[in-house]
């Protein structure tokens, strides 16, 4: 036999009334087939069957109130459970007639109280005991965590709803407890906050009964004194009574509301309407509230170092305006200038000027205020900002750094031409870095030719002109092409075609300064080589300690497109080419 107990129909309501049975004893029902309409304090709800099987008994009839957790329907033994582990012993089968009065275990009227696992959220049917935080015999306070329960969603601490002594913990770690099944039994003497014992002393009756509401109203017993004075003052203000002229008749001569009302009636102690304003119009010049000014004006005065006391108040209702502060600031600087020139005049009137900077009388320098407006970023600088942001948003950059020994270079070697040649050579050895990559469509294009973009620094911003087919050029040709491009930039004659289709980029920041860097790959390209400033370094070689010329290299590659091995092989190829004498 299986027993189906009335589950919580929502919002933690304690019971529900049977409106209408939808099945009869002896009926065969399917899982989720509605069996009965129940009415809670909130709504009428259809209760579906958790099992497929034959109904042997319906507990209660229309109009009966069934406690949550009490037996509602019994099924025959052959019914195949589809839903839950909830066996009959989860709730005591002591509910012979399942009406209100006969559900002893479900409410707190007796000496002990059973706390049932509440819905821990989102309507999940059960939860697993993770760890008990209390043991049987412990005393707990309201809201003290008793147990950690794990639902399908989260681990939740279940707090105690009452203060009292725990007489029994139902289940142990690892047990799955159904919502609505007993979790903790409290021994006698527990004082519930939500549903207090119906009567203790008659005098306390009203305060111990917190009502019939779902929820928990915090209860305190602290007695606090009302600030009667604030009420009397408020009334006096309302009735326009000056309290200083009212004689108090309360305890210790305190003024009562009745005194204020009497004074208002007799009209003896009428407060002048100015008294309210008197509070404001202070004379303490150290108090910023002695002056009326908006926060913006106060901020301006702070910025210009102007004392509000030195300002005229030409604004509405005697307030200090922005121009009052500005006038005070100007007046002060002209005043100090006048002082300066008048001091200078007696000694040498011909050379005196009104400029305070020429004064010699120990005057302080006047303050200078300069306004700088932000300027719109346009053109090449704007393109750089957008390009860099795009790169930052898409590329997965990795930078390799290395030094290459270029001591073998003859005097007068054109370093830029060597860099271009090295890039072309390395691109042949390791084509993966001379490529374009499209991360959105997951496509890669390995270029047969090498178009080297050269980062060029100008006052307008960053240009990257492109030496197309650099791999087909001699060093002289590529060097000449770079010069052509530079001249075009200088003459504002650079064409979009000159800036397009780079397959790899070179940034020779070392011509200015910088040893290593993290150059930014410009998509769809996948690599950029940064060449740093070369330096002399003493190295221990088989010829003894020798001065060597070292060129720092920084290679950034897009790790979406290239492997670290490819990049390292590429860098090695560059070093191989650069270390050659010619």
């Amino acid at each position, binding site marked *: 036999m299986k027993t189906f107990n009335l589950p919580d129909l929502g919002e933690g309501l304690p019971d529900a009334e049977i409106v209408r049975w939808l099945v009869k004893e002896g009926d065969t029902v399917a899982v989720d087939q509605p069996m009965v309409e129940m009415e809670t304090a909130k709504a009428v709800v259809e209760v579906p069957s958790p099992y497929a099987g034959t109904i042997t008994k319906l507990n209660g009839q229309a109009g009966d109130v069934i406690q949550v957790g009490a037996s509602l329907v019994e099924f025959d033994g052959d019914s195949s459970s589809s839903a839950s582990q909830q066996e009959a012993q989860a709730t005591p089968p002591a509910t012979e007639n399942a009406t209100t009065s006969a559900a002893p275990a479900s409410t707190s009227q007796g000496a002990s109280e059973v706390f049932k696992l509440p819905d821990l959220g989102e309507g999940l049917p059960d939860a697993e005991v993770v760890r008990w935080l209390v043991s049987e015999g412990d005393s707990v306070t309201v809201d003290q965590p008793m147990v950690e329960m794990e639902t399908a969603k989260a681990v939740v601490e279940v707090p105690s709803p009452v203060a009292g002594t725990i007489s029994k913990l139902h289940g142990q770690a690892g047990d799955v407890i159904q919502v609505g099944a007993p979790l903790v039994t409290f021994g006698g003497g527990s004082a519930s906050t939500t549903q207090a014992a119906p009567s203790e002393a008659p005098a306390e009756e009203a305060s111990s009964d917190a009502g019939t509401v779902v929820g928990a109203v915090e209860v305190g017993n602290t007695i606090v004194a009302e600030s009667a004075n604030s009420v009397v003052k408020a009334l006096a203000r309302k009735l326009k009574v000056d309290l200083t002229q009212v004689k108090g008749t309360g305890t210790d001569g305190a003024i009562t509301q009745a005194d204020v009302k009497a004074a208002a009636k007799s009209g003896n102690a009428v407060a002048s309407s100015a008294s*309210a304003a008197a*509070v404001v119009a202070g004379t303490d010049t150290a108090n910023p509230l002695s002056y009326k000014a908006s926060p913006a004006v106060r901020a301006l005065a702070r910025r210009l170092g102007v004392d509000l006391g030195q300002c005229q108040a030409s604004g509405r209702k005697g307030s200090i305006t922005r121009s009052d502060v500005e006038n005070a600031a100007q007046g002060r600087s002209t005043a100090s200038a006048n002082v300066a020139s008048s001091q200078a005049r007696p000694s040498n009137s011909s050379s005196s000027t009104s400029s305070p900077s020429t004064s010699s009388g120990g005057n302080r320098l006047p303050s200078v205020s300069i306004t700088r407006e932000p300027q719109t970023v346009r053109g090449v600088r704007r393109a750089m900002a957008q390009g860099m942001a795009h790169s930052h948003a898409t590329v997965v950059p990795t930078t390799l750094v290395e030094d290459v020994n270029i001591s073998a270079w003859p005097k007068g070697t054109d370093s830029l031409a060597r860099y271009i040649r090295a890039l072309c050579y390395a691109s042949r050895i390791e084509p993966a870095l001379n490529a374009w990559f499209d991360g959105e469509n997951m496509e890669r294009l390995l270029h047969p030719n090498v178009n080297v973009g050269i980062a060029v620094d100008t006052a307008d911003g960053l240009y990257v002109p492109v030496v197309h087919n650099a791999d087909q050029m001699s060093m002289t040709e590529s060097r000449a092409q770079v010069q052509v491009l530079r001249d075009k930039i200088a003459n504002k004659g650079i064409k979009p075609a000159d800036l397009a289709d780079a397959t790899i980029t070179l940034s020779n920041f070392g011509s200015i300064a910088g040893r290593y860097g993290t150059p930014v790959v410009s998509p769809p390209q996948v690599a950029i080589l940064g060449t740093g400033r070369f330096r002399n370094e003493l190295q221990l070689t088989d010829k003894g300690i020798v001065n060597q010329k070292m060129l720092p290299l920084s290679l950034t590659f897009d790790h979406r497109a290239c492997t670290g091995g490819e990049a390292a092989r590429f860098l090695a190829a560059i070093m191989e080419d650069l270390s050659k004498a010619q």
Partner: protein
Amino acid sequence: MPAITLIEAVNMAMAHEMGVDNSVVALGEDVGTNGGVFRATDGLQKKFGKDRVIDTPLAESMIAGVSVGMAAQGIKPIAEIQFMGFIFPAVDQIICHMARMRHRTRGRITLPLVLRAPFGGGIHAPEHHSESTEAIFAHIPGLKVVIPSNPSRAYGLMLAAIRDPDPVIFLEPKRVYRIVKHEVEDNGEDYPLGCCFVDREGTDITLISWGAMLHETNMAADKLAAEGISCEVIDVATVSPLDIETILESVAKTGRAVIVQEAPKAGSLGSEIAAEIAEKGIFNLLAPIGRVSGYDTIMPYYRLEKQYMPTVDRILEEVRKTVEYS
């Protein structure tokens, strides 16, 4: 003098006025036999009978409509809306009739009624039980909106609300229904409506709050006093019509203001108070007006309720920010 809670003070005031004025009646869902779900009307039906303490069906529109009708005929109803979240079916009656009757009849008919509703969050209640929608009613001309913050004020302001010749929406902060007790003498002395109460005098900053949040505000003021920041604390009490004069006077004295409310921020009562201060008191401001409020979102269910409710720490942070502003 008995020490009583806020909810008991509401009960005491109703019982007092029903005792001295036979035209006062109470009605609402579960107010009779049950004594009100929070026990606001506990014992009243036993004392004054079923004719004066009336259990109504679950029909808020009818409760408000019947109250309008009763009040128009000289009865003084105290109607309970069980939770403020259930007031909305009654809004047509409240806004279109209750608030306008005096105006509509050119002063010939006034409605001496009180519409009580527990409101606000923090009691782990289900949906619709935790909102703070006082601004909706404060926005309607013709309604007074009163929110007591402690037992004495609940008693004094409830008496004043019943005695007022016009409709009063009396919103009870249910989270603090039982949080502290006051010794309240059942002497029938009412408190003035339309007044803010300056509960704590200070010089550095004015904290403005009402209802349950006044508890957090006062706790914050205590902590700030230990840091040397002197707070003036104002209980707005009557949120409509607003006693802005008292607030402006205080801000003129302190130069700074922080408003603390449980309701969401946008379009709230705090917005109105901030606007009034900016409009009429801006020259006295040393810092921008600060606001601590609930968030502009649906009030979450109880598991996230604590995350929603303004805390003492949030008030401290806002006050420090405002005081340190330069």
